[in-house]
């Protein structure tokens, strides 16, 4: 197997001498520590679930979803890149031939076990078709049985994204 070496970033002396970064980190930590311990009434508290967080950033990794193409059909081509890259091995895919003429391959079964998922986002990074995203802002997942946490292809396709655009942005990864 051959590899493509990507140059490492952060070569300056300041970056390589990690103590300066450590100093910045500790300043924040101890800043909070002293502020909170000197005035316990001013500690930031969110009365969840009555009050919902309003500071979720666009980079937040929430519940997964499978995206659609512009024509509304499934974007995923069952390439298994996400399943291969997943460190928790919680994505189960079975592929089949796609017969609607839009593409050649699609998943018959696509399941994510959210109890095993570590929400690392590597599946999203790996996907060549922008077919899986974690941009739903859904952070609360509740169920009564283990099986409730296995999300099926249909559930993942029905889950909405929190931001526009809602369609797969991949332009002809395989047309």
């Amino acid at each position, binding site marked *: 197997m*051959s590899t*493509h070496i990507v140059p490492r970033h952060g070569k300056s002396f300041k970056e390589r001498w990690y103590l300066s970064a450590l100093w910045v980190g500790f300043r924040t930590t101890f800043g909070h520590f002293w502020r909170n311990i000197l005035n316990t009434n001013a500690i930031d508290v969110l009365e969840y679930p009555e009050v919902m967080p309003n500071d979720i950033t666009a980079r937040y990794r929430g519940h997964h979803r499978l995206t659609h193409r512009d024509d509304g059909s499934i974007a995923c*081509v069952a*390439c298994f890149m996400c399943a291969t890259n997943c460190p928790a*091995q919680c994505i*189960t895919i079975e592929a089949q*031939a796609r017969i609607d003429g839009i593409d*050649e391959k699609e998943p018959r079964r696509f399941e994510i076990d959210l109890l095993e998922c570590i929400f690392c986002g590597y599946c999203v990074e790996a996907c060549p078709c922008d077919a899986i995203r974690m941009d739903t802002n859904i952070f609360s997942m509740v169920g009564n049985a283990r099986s409730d946490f296995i999300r099926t292809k249909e559930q993942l396709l029905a889950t909405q994204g929190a931001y526009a655009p809602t369609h797969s942005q991949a332009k002809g*990864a*395989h047309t």
Partner: protein
Amino acid sequence: MSNVTLRIDEHTLTAPKGSLLIQVMLDNGLSIPHFCYHEALEADGNCRMCMVEIEGQKRPQIACNTPIKEGMIVRTTTPSIMQTKRAILELELRNHPVDCPICDQAGECSLQEYYMEVGLYDAHVAKSDKIHKAKHVDLGSHVVLDQERCVLCQRCVRFVHDKAKSADLVVTGRGATSVISAVGAFTGNGYAMNVVDLCPVGALTSSDFRFAQRVWFLQSDASICHGCARGCNIHLDHHAIKGGIDTLYRLRPRKNSAVNGHFMCDTGRISYKSLNENRLLEPHVEGHATSFSHTFSLLRRTLDDKSQTIVALVSPHWSLENLASVKLFCARFEIPLFGAHEASIEPSFADEWLRVADRAPNRAGLELLGIDVSPHARDRALSRAQVVLDFGHDATLSSMSTRYYFGTHPHSDAQMQLPVAAYSEESGHLINCDNIVQHYSGSVKRSEPLLSLHALLGLLVMEGAWATQPFWHATLIDMAPSLEGRL
């Protein structure tokens, strides 16, 4: 033949005079990108991917058509030769659809590999400017052609002409619009699917394996095809998806110049299906599933009952280890044992290349172990038998006798059935039609506990050593001294 010494980059190598440079490099595990060259086919030199620099030659040379010479100095990594390789690869990818996500070859594709090695990572051609060709042509014989992915190396064409001796595949068209096409129905004379292995890219893929699994998940065992007495060397590719059972996905030929070269027949290649489906997984008595302990006690009672006439039959489908265990077992209980007969001879299966008429993988082994194969004695014994211990033999019995069956698949006419491991789940030795002793091993794990025939019989006679390889090694040599040094 005399040897010559040459230098390739920082390696000094010695190889027989007259060898092709590319073969010397491949034999020594050196990287040399190539498409059209294949060890089993004659050098063609059409793809130009195998360029190297040879000291004293002005221009780069192709390694696949260059015989080595004494003192030759070859370079494969200088900036200028890397630039040459990059340019040739760019041409190969000029009209390639780059649809790795949906291509079954991904993970074992030469294009992917060389792209990582020498690739031009930023394309000069927009996807919309590429020439389009047919993407899904079902050629027949389980082979699917994608003309866009083809690099026109013509390995498939040359294989079909030179090895399979048919004229099914040709190149049609000119220049950038050249494509591979089939003339009539593609049969490859029963060896069609070898073109799937030969094709260095995803242009020829197998419809049987289509989208079944990604190749990097597959675990591969070195085994022997049990389809006929040739005993082609194969890879057993299997995988268990999460929560599923370990399943065989495909068989691929494994190189052995003394037996099958790089190839295997299509019948053998598809034969894995029966190992996945319709298996005997639990002991059965009178058609009902039951426990091993119950079956064992019934069986022991029969074996100890001296008033019954018991005869044993064994088929030539088992390994030497299993055959020897049957022989020891029958000797212990003084049961007459008979072996191979005509049933698995199928003259229409034979051809001029690999396939032979004997569809059993180990008839030679059965004979070597001295198991009685005379039809007369067998028929005489069978006509008097009340109980027949049937080790995968499948002979028709007279209505008077009951069959106790040891096998991998259910038997419709058996009083008792005991499940045993198939060859994909155990290891052993076979002797092929040319008297070559071959070892196979398989690690497919069923969720049900399946024992090898020899381990099962060992349990029945309460000898743990019957489950071990060293025991069989010594026992086999004891039974057939000519096996010494061949196991």
